């Protein structure tokens, strides 16, 4: 594995510098390792995201116009320490409080909670909404144990838009909870990424197998299945999402006429070619069920270095979420014009 880096122990800092450069003035670096927008207006309810590095363009690439106001960035695959969370919180707060919105991992929860305690000491109002879209990581009755994976992209896009108009932290929290509740993902992995500091693969997986439901760090899912075709795998994966909407008592099953946002993600080395081939099958399955695609996201947005694998995320849309979706946005991770494809 040839990696284009300098000091392997310094990659998280250097990539953040590069990210700030990529924003060319729209964002700045704050404290030890946070990135925040330069133009957060007074009185705005702030949105803070964050997590470990190494998954670029998320998490810190989700800061941007009509998206998150800032991100607290950890080292490779490590949650940001509490002091970094606090520094980012202070930098984005405009007196209306700060919503923490991040993926449900023990390390992130521990550190963001500690950061929230530090922020509370400074009288900053903080609220937390966890993203737990990975339906393979726990049953619907234990959603608090689920991991956050690719679904965070549509969720942050929607909540970032909501944060532009939210009058209160309560209002933003409610929008975030809805976006999270409506978003479900299933992922697979075919081969590992590598840890920049050691050059070692993040996990081992038999050459003939696919990890169905595997997490973005190689956490096991529901089964290891033989390598198969794009169409068969897509069918299996979508089935798990449909099932989850059915089984979960907190949401309605997906039914004819429902509209979803469809996100097809690559974990890194899986090509756009493969994503599109799988997307084609997903569209056919959805069409057969009479489910409409409101809009599509496709690309390597939630990665784990050069890991190969793919995930599908559905977000069930209603008028409120559509309104958020239709706002344009711009960031390192995801950008769009006003409106939607096909609309």
């Amino acid at each position, binding site marked *: 594995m040839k990696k284009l880096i300098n000091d392997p*122990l310094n990659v998280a800092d250097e990539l953040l510098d590069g990210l700030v450069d990529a924003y060319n003035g729209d964002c700045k670096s704050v404290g030890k390792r946070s990135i925040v927008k330069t133009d957060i207006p007074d009185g705005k309810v702030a949105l803070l995201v964050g997590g*470990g590095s190494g998954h670029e363009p998320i998490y810190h690439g989700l800061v941007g116009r009509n998206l998150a106001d800032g991100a607290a960035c*950890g*080292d*490779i*695959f*490590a*949650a*940001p*320490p*509490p*002091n*970094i969370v606090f520094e980012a919180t202070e930098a984005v707060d405009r007196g209306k409080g700060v919503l923490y919105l991040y993926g449900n*991992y*023990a*390390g992130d929860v*521990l*550190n963001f909670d*500690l950061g929230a305690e530090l922020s509370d000491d400074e009288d900053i109002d903080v609220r937390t909404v966890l993203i737990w879209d990975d339906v393979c*990581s726990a049953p619907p009755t234990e959603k608090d144990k689920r991991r956050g994976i690719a679904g965070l992209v549509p969720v942050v896009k929607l909540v970032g838009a909501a944060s532009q108009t939210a009058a209160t932290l309560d209002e933003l929290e409610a929008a975030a909870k809805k976006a999270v509740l409506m978003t479900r993902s299933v992922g697979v992995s075919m081969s590992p990424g590598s*840890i920049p*500091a*050691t050059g*070692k*693969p*993040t*996990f081992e997986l038999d050459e003939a197998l696919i990890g169905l439901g595997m997490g973005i*760090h*190689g*956490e*096991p*899912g529901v089964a290891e299945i033989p390598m198969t075709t794009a169409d068969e795998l897509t069918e299996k994966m979508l089935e798990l999402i449909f099932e989850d909407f059915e089984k979960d008592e907190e949401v309605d099953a997906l039914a004819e006429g429902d509209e979803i946002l469809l996100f097809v993600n690559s974990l890194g080395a899986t090509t756009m070619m493969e994503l599109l081939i799988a997307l084609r099958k997903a569209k056919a399955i959805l069409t057969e069920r009479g489910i409409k695609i409101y809009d599509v996201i496709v690309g390597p947005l939630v990665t784990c270095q050069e890991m190969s694998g793919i995930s599908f995320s559905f977000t069930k849309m209603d008028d409120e979420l559509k309104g958020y979706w239709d706002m344009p946005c711009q960031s390192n991770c995801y950008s769009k014009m006003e409106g939607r494809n096909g609309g």
Partner: protein
Amino acid sequence: MAKETLSINETRDMMIAVANKIIEAEPILTDADRALGDGDHGVGMERGMNAVKEALEGEEFPSVGKVFMAVGMAMMSSMGGASGAVFGTLFRSGGKAIKDAETLGAAEIVTFYKEGTEGVMSRGGAKPGDKTMVDALLPAAEAGEKAGAATVSEATAAIAEGAEAGKEASKDMIATMGRAKTLGEKSLGKADAGAVSVSIIAATMRDFAAA
């Protein structure tokens, strides 16, 4: 020559020795976390322990408790990840409980482990058997209490033995917390990475106190 108590500066030097041992053990910790987690525990602990050395080397402290608190602060603010929070909490909570002590004797080190363990468990919510560092830490703390040792060298020896046994026992547990690869059987047969770190920390304390 086995020590009865450690001075503030000896406690500091013991923690520098611990830091060096953990840095040395990076490949072992990496492999443990690769097997069951996301593979970053070794680099994370290395990063934390480099920060610890920077915070301790050439510094004077008002109490042994403050040495441990400085260790905890350095780890918590440099590492991130689950282990930054839990190991940071271990040293901060444990240190706080003996923050006025001017020597580290058997009673102080036992209190440190007991309160540190409680801090970790209430912060992280892990229970014994979840296959986390708690499975090395809790037996270590309990062994320390049970030993009723008179000297720091005896106490750290008992604690290290408890940690080692706990780490070994973690091999038979199924991981459920953190970024551990949760799917049952897969995690059997291998020790938890954080438990390995705890056992190295305890063993290095024992060796330092025994020397």
